[in-house]
């Protein structure tokens, strides 16, 4: 009889423990999933934001995703990953479980790696930059974070850059093409006649990318990016490969062939636009390294150079900084007769 009290107490503790466990389902929260330790097919709902009671979400829509089940777990995968640093709430069996996916301590924040061209003087009819980011950048509303400042009075240049709903990004999402408003850079178009060119001769400007620009995980840059430059003369001369200087490598070596451009060229148009063939027209295997910010390209052959004559073949689309390519000016004067461009240079390895 004396043990009855203790037995009842033990049963009570057991029930309380069971109750406690039943109230504390074991959730694990990850960037791309929520895992609930359960042997049953228990689905739950996930909401954006922190809520203290299930009533708070009555008029809210839960996050779209899919459930899968195995013998030990129920797994929820949202249609897009949870955003790091944002607050979410799981609602399960009339209880709420708020959570945050923390940003790693040593998170690799988005930054600008290279700007092409990074020239300190740009022509008044300059057309486009390429911005190389360290990781894929959030394409949504990207132009809200990029602007041009007139350095002399520190004012923002209105309608300087071309905003596009789908920004022009490379396949890996890391290289952004940024156009100076082309309607203002092309002679005789309405915007050009009324507003003139975006860049005024001899003035100084700064391209700014504010630090609110985010990566594809929704995490902003840590520092803003700035590049200052001065505006030089209009460039209305087609680039010509005749002016290029070639440093010829030694025979029977795999030394790189160096092509010196003598002027800044457009990064995007140059990539993939060069090839080297031998006298019989066979393409020489190897790799090009394009360094437009230092005005040269290197070609490293896969095999040793043999004696003979080689030809550097260029695509006519190679542009200078004002959109003039080997074949035509960006805004071609139709009264001037077209001249076929020179697209090949030969060189001899002795």
């Amino acid at each position, binding site marked *: 009889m004396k043990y009855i009290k203790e037995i009842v107490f033990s049963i009570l503790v057991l029930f309380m423990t069971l109750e406690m466990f039943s109230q504390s389902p074991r959730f694990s929260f990850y960037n791309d999933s929520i895992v609930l330790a359960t042997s049953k097919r228990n689905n739950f709902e996930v909401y954006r934001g922190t809520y203290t009671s299930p009533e708070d979400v009555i008029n809210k829509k839960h996050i779209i995703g899919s459930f899968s089940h195995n013998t030990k777990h129920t797994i929820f995968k949202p249609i897009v990953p949870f955003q790091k640093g944002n607050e979410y709430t799981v609602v399960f069996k009339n209880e709420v479980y708020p959570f945050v996916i923390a940003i790693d301590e040593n998170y690799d924040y988005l930054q600008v790696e290279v700007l092409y061209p990074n020239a300190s003087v740009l022509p008044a009819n300059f057309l486009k930059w390429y911005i190389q980011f360290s990781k894929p950048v959030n394409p949504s509303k990207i132009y809200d974070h990029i602007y041009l400042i007139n350095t002399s009075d520190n004012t923002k240049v209105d309608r300087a850059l071309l905003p596009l709903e789908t920004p022009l990004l490379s396949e890996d999402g890391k290289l952004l093409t940024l156009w100076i408003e082309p*309607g203002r850079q092309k002679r005789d178009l309405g915007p050009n006649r009324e507003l003139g060119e975006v860049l005024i001769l001899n003035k100084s400007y700064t391209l700014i990318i504010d630090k609110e620009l985010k990566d594809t995980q929704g995490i902003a840059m840590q520092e803003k990016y700035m590049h200052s430059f001065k505006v030089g003369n209009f460039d209305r001369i087609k680039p010509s490969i005749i002016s290029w200087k070639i440093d010829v490598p030694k025979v029977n070596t795999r030394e790189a062939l160096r092509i010196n451009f003598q002027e800044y060229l457009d990064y995007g148009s140059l990539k993939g636009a060069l090839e080297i063939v031998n006298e019989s027209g066979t393409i020489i295997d190897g790799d090009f390294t394009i360094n437009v910010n230092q005005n040269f390209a290197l070609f490293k052959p896969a095999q040793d150079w043999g004696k003979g004559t080689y030809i550097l073949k260029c695509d006519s689309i190679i542009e200078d900084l004002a959109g003039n390519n080997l074949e035509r000016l960006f805004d071609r004067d139709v009264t001037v007769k077209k001249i076929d461009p020179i697209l090949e240079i030969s060189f001899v390895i002795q």
Partner: protein
Amino acid sequence: MKKILFTMALGLLLTPLFANSSLTDGFITGNPEIGTINAMTFGPESILFIGDSKAAQIVAVDMSTAPKATNEKLNIPDIESVLSELLGADSDQLQIIDMVVNPANQNIYIGSQHSSGKSILFLVNNNTLEMVSLESVSYTKTDISNVISEEAKDRRGRSLRNLAISDVRYADGKVMLSGLSNTEFASTFRSISFPFTKKQDDSTLEIYHAAHGRYETASPIKTFTTTLINNEPHLIASYTCTPLVVFPLSELKSGKHTKGRTVAELGNANTPLDIIEMEKEGSRYILMANSNRALMKIKVSDIESFGDSLSTKVVERAGTSGIDFINLPFVNVQQLDKLNGEEFVYIQRSASGKLRLGKSNNRWL
């Protein structure tokens, strides 16, 4: 006589066979593996064409089995917050890429993109959004990778050239698409026969326009539509740098540099976003949404009677020129499509900063 009767009988027997032939006959069921939704349009038989820049393809999806949505009192005052809730993401991580209406049942579809690169299709129903899965659908598709540039890509090292599809339309058995290149300010326009065949008889066009006669420039087409001008099928295209240009479809031939007839310039720093055609009392109108101008209305008959290209300087009005157009009291319209014969649906950034989906009708015409 016997022969005639026999032919008639055979004809009657075969009629149902041909009547049943459909544009969706060659479609297969499965996952079209869509990379990104960049532009959408509906063709006949509820076929949704999706321009997919990432996978460099045009996908045609049969949407005829989708139930009709309820959109009688169409109004979503803050569509970004709905998307934000459904995807669990900040609104600056999301973007509405395109909105199209299925003319067969007036279902409204919205293509959106998340910063992770994932594109999601939604159906507008009861003033909210329902995700439409594209993982198991009846579809066909065609590769457009050679639009981007194929020449000797491997031998010369990897080209950076990438195509962002800016618009897609269907007309007269052709899927047409325009694209922006990330390395060249030039026009990439392509017309592909539909149903797609293994051997594409498509044409790739580079279109130039002359600005007031003297200077000729290449420019990408931002948005376009097709219509009849003087009873001939024409393309009405708007360039990224504002001119509105018309081309007879018959002149768009493979490899040919086609010069369009500029009929208007639509103002400074203005990017055209969407063009549709509406009718009222026998007159046809072009409605155009713009990034930096109000919704514009242009009478098709004005384009028909506008004889010259803008080859000489014309009298300017408020930074625009050419044919007459009227600004409608709809500003910051980002998406536009025809809902039915009388109504159009639009997505507009309202004065409060919220993105609103609503509809209006042809009383504005």
